[in-house]
């Protein structure tokens, strides 16, 4: 395996690509008891249209998530799951816009558990009956999300911003769309998206990297499979379709999410650099030490839940600025004014240096959690960068790069989604 040391962070990363195309990342951690593994497929809610071996396919919304649920079913007599739980590893999974991740954390029997997890995720077993049964359970998951104002405000905004991109549709799908899923759909998608060359395995804990590599070689199929090519549609223009959308729900106070489409970053270390620039810029513009946040907080327009970030992946980049406010449109106007001011006057060099320090500390803190470290590594694998490079890149960022990022955000690019308390 290839080794790269990160002396400033006190970490070392072991990497390999197996002959079947699986990419492997291991961070050994001496002295820690817990060990964590995530086995991830480059397959999320947005991978609905794709081509593989020259053939184009179109699938209903919610297949990636449905498949994730059904991977926990095994043929009669297969005791993999029981053995995992008996070993103290309760495996779990989630599906995001761009990935499906299977993971577990345990302190004992890690190597055996890893073999079991790899076996579980490479053993598709679906019947029409179990598919029907799952439609009921996921139906309840959809209901649960319908009652969540966070989901509602998020879904609303994405529909205001995007005209065609599959991010418009929920990862869970709808009761109708999941009704179209059959056992065959699941077999087909498993074959295409769970091919070793479309997956990665990331491990952190007190482990021997060579042993992890050996386990992966032994447990996973030898054939590479063909990597599917996702089709997210043509790149969209940068203006939103709809500036404002409101909906009423049983909430205590208005919830809002301001957003904008940004230029996608592509792949590689340059993409990671762009992620860092956007986070650092937003920290200066809207973060806890910014004039903007403190002014609106004191005026009673914002509270501690206020947050701003840019999400990258699946061929797009989206700005999200959200929280709770008695006057969400007032917050939107204030964001626009603050952007205009910075576009005119530039950023303050003293604040820039401070923000960089704080970002450095936050990155350091992020390295404490095995789960978030492994998930960042997995995202990096699929986008051709290494998340551990972030701290070094951060130190070289310039104030000009942040100003350029903020200059792009003209007021007409912003949209706002609001959930208001039900008027009785």
């Amino acid at each position, binding site marked *: 395996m290839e080794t790269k040391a990160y002396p400033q*962070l*006190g970490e070392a990363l072991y990497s390999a690509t197996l002959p079947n195309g699986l990419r492997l990342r291991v961070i050994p951690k001496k002295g*820690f*008891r*817990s060990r964590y593994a995530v086995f991830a497929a480059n397959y999320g809610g947005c991978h609905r249209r794709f081509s593989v071996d020259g053939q184009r396919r179109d699938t209903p919304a919610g297949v990636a998530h449905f498949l994730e649920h059904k991977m*926990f079913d095994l043929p009669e007599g297969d005791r993999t*799951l*029981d053995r995992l*739980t*008996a070993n*103290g*590893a*309760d*495996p*779990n999974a989630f599906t995001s816009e761009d990935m499906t991740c299977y993971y577990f954390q345990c*302190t*004992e029997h890690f190597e055996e558990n890893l073999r079991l997890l790899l076996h579980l995720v490479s053993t598709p077993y679906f019947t029409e009956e179990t598919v029907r*049964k799952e439609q*009921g*359970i*996921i139906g*309840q998951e959809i*209901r*649960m999300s319908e*009652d*969540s*104002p966070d989901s509602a405000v998020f879904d609303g905004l994405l*529909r205001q911003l995007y005209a065609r991109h599959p991010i418009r549709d929920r990862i869970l799908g709808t009761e109708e769309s999941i009704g179209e899923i059959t056992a065959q759909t699941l077999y087909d998608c498993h074959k295409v998206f769970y091919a070793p060359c479309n997956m990665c395995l990331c491990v952190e804990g007190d482990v021997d990297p060579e042993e992890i590599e050996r386990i992966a070689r032994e447990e996973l199929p030898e054939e590479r499979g063909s990597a599917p090519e996702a089709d997210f549609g043509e790149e969209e223009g940068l203006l939103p379709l709809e500036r404002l959308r409101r*909906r*009423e729900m*049983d*909430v*205590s*106070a208005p919830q809002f999410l301001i957003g904008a489409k940004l230029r996608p970053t592509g792949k590689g270390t340059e993409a990671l650099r762009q992620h860092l620039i956007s986070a650092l810029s937003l920290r200066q513009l809207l*973060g*806890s*030490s*910014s*004039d903007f946040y*403190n002014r609106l*907080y*004191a005026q*009673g327009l914002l*509270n*501690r839940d206020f947050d701003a970030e840019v999400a990258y992946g699946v061929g797009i980049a989206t700005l999200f600025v959200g929280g*709770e406010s008695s006057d969400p449109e007032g917050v939107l106007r204030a964001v626009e004014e603050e952007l205009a001011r910075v576009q005119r006057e530039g950023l303050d060099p003293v604040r820039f240096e*401070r*923000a960089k*320090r*704080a*970002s*450095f*500390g*936050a990155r350091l*803190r992020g*390295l*404490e*959690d*095995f789960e978030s470290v492994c998930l960042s590594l997995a995202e990096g694998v699929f986008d051709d960068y290494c998340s551990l490079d972030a701290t070094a890149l951060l130190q070289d960022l310039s104030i000009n790069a942040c100003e350029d990022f903020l200059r792009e955000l003209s007021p007409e690019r912003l949209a706002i989604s609001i959930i208001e308390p*039900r008027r009785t």
Partner: protein
Amino acid sequence: MELTRTEILPGVWLNALRSEQFKTACLSLSLLTQLKRETASMNALIPYVLRRGTTRFPDMESLSARMEELYGAAIEPVVRRIGEIQCLGFYASIPEGAFLPGGKSVLRPACELLGQLLLSPATRGGLLLPAYVDSEKEKLLDRIRSRINHKSAYALSRCVEEMCCCEDFAVSRLGSEDACESVNYKKLTKQYHTLLQTSPVEIFYCGRAEMRELSAALRDALVTLPRGEIDYEIGTDLRMNALEDKPRFVEEELDVSQGNLVIGWRLGDCMEDPDQAALLVFSAVYGGGTSSKLFRNVRERLQLCYHAGSLVDLHKGLLLASAGIDFDKLDSARDEIFAQLEAMRRGEISEEELDAARACVASDLRAMCDSQGELEGFYLSQTLDGLDCSPLELAALAEDVTKEDVVRIAQSVDCDLIYFLKGGEQEEADGD
């Protein structure tokens, strides 16, 4: 990794775990006080008002700037309820010097800032600033009201509230809207001084600093803490049995598309001499993870829900089971949740179920040693319960829990209340 516990000032206890494992240190400070309806909101308000400004850093902007200078050392207000004890204070996460450019520790300046936040708030004429108090009061009211936004958590808290309607445990960690409304800056200043004088203080630290360096920094930071007679008479009232002969039923309507069922029990006689390890294994068998009875039966076999699980409150002696279901499935879900408990009472627990529960509880406890946040919560809880068992010791005990231990707990629990949140008569929300 061993915990040392020292009284560094009168009634101020430092619990320190020295560890080289982490890149940031954790430092928390909690004032302990009895959870009461009249004072809960006022107490909850205090750390948030203090976080608005100090004499040296008079507003949030300058405070945040100072924290950024310390490489993002974050010191944030925390308000918790552990049993019927309200814990309020700050949780700080401080980057370790060894990983910072320049390699200099920021522990001492971070301790200073923590001390200033607690002891030197921005005041006028000795009183907390009315503008800060009023503003944080509005935000606390918003936070209290916002529990309705997350329906499954709302249903859980409503069940506890109804179940413990005659006990202080019905009061949430943030208190009530009514009590919050009546707070003003004069009352709050008085309560702040009372707490400083009378509350036991628990400090938790986990990081690389030497004990001597750490306690010196903390003593210097807290030297002006005014201490009076310290109130150690705080604790949690245990009620062993249900309020009425038959379980009460409470139903509530909101604009929801999914129903939320929560059933609450008193843990009963087993709380006379509670066996923490056995209680954790019991809850894991009943409704812990994917191998639990509730998950396998209510979700997987009967397909009534997406989430179904249980939890125990070891301090107050409660068991809660919950499931998100269709409105018309109340009876079948409730019956199955009871049926699974009945099965446990009859001793119907397989070797596999027990093994999985023991292994998962033990693994989670051992993994806790790698998370400062969890260690902090664990040790504060242990201290309040007068216990000094480490996560590793508790993990070993969990592995020795027998089927009989679990059955005994199942037989001891007493159902008190069934709560159901369902949809109202309102029209469909307008979507796409």
